[in-house]
């Protein structure tokens, strides 16, 4: 390992800054393709989004910055995901996705340090209602 800090200034400066929105038109084909990919044949997923569909509404503006931010740790894993459903996401909706980095935690392990990056994402529909609140933890190691 070098002396380069795991939590760089670049990462620190990202904390609690909103990135986005990334705007998604919820097209029927997109929802059906997602349901097929997760192998969930429930007929409800022709018009409404299946539970983990927000995973496809990527907060790219946040994640591009987060995954490319300076740190000596290069490998990445998904640590945890959480979704809270306030309004259904349906075909025809327009969802604006905004994400932020809320916390950074360095953990010392047997194989060296790892970095837990905690994020929160809001999925807001065209009526300006927050449809889904998401949290995700990414691990660099």
């Amino acid at each position, binding site marked *: 390992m070098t002396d380069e800090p795991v939590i760089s200034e670049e990462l620190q400066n990202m904390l609690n800054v909103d990135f986005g929105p990334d705007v998604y038109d919820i097209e029927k084909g997109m929802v059906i393709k997602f349901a097929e990919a997760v192998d969930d044949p429930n007929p409800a997923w022709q018009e409404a989004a299946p539970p983990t569909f927000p995973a*496809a509404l990527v907060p790219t503006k946040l994640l591009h910055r987060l995954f490319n931010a300076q740190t000596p740790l290069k490998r990445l894993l998904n640590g945890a995901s959480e979704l809270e459903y306030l309004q259904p996401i349906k075909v025809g909706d327009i969802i604006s996705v905004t994400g932020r980095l809320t916390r950074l935690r360095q953990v010392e392990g047997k194989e060296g340090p790892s970095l837990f990056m905690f994020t929160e994402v809001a999925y807001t529909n065209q009526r300006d209602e927050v449809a889904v609140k998401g949290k995700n933890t990414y691990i660099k190691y």
Partner: protein
Amino acid sequence: MTEQVYYEDIEAGSEIPVLVKYPTTMQLVKYAGASGDYYQIHYDKDFALANGLPGVIVHGWLALSFLGQMITDWLGEGGTLVKLNGSYRGMNPVHEDIICNGKVTKKYVEDGKNCARVEIWAENPQGEKTVTGSAVVTLPSRE
């Protein structure tokens, strides 16, 4: 689809019907395309091995999707999923069963709604938990 489950039918300890999935490399490619998650550890074996992994691994979100399906299959048309979460504790390789389980831990009425909290987990064929989490749901009443 099975028969509608009602709030009166469940109690703490009630088990959710098990759902077993068998993800293949093709499914991971389909999931990558549908979700936009093109991280190579999920479909490029050489890349996965170079990253110290035993081979390509199932997306955490895909394993959580299986748990989500287990819950929504159980809820039927009358129930709603309010919250879903999962921690990815172990890696699921492809071409191996992912066994999804759930158990009601609590039922309660909140804001006039019949709610239940469900502990959920995914196991590999060795019985190791690879995803652990919980769901909050509402159920219809027979009354």
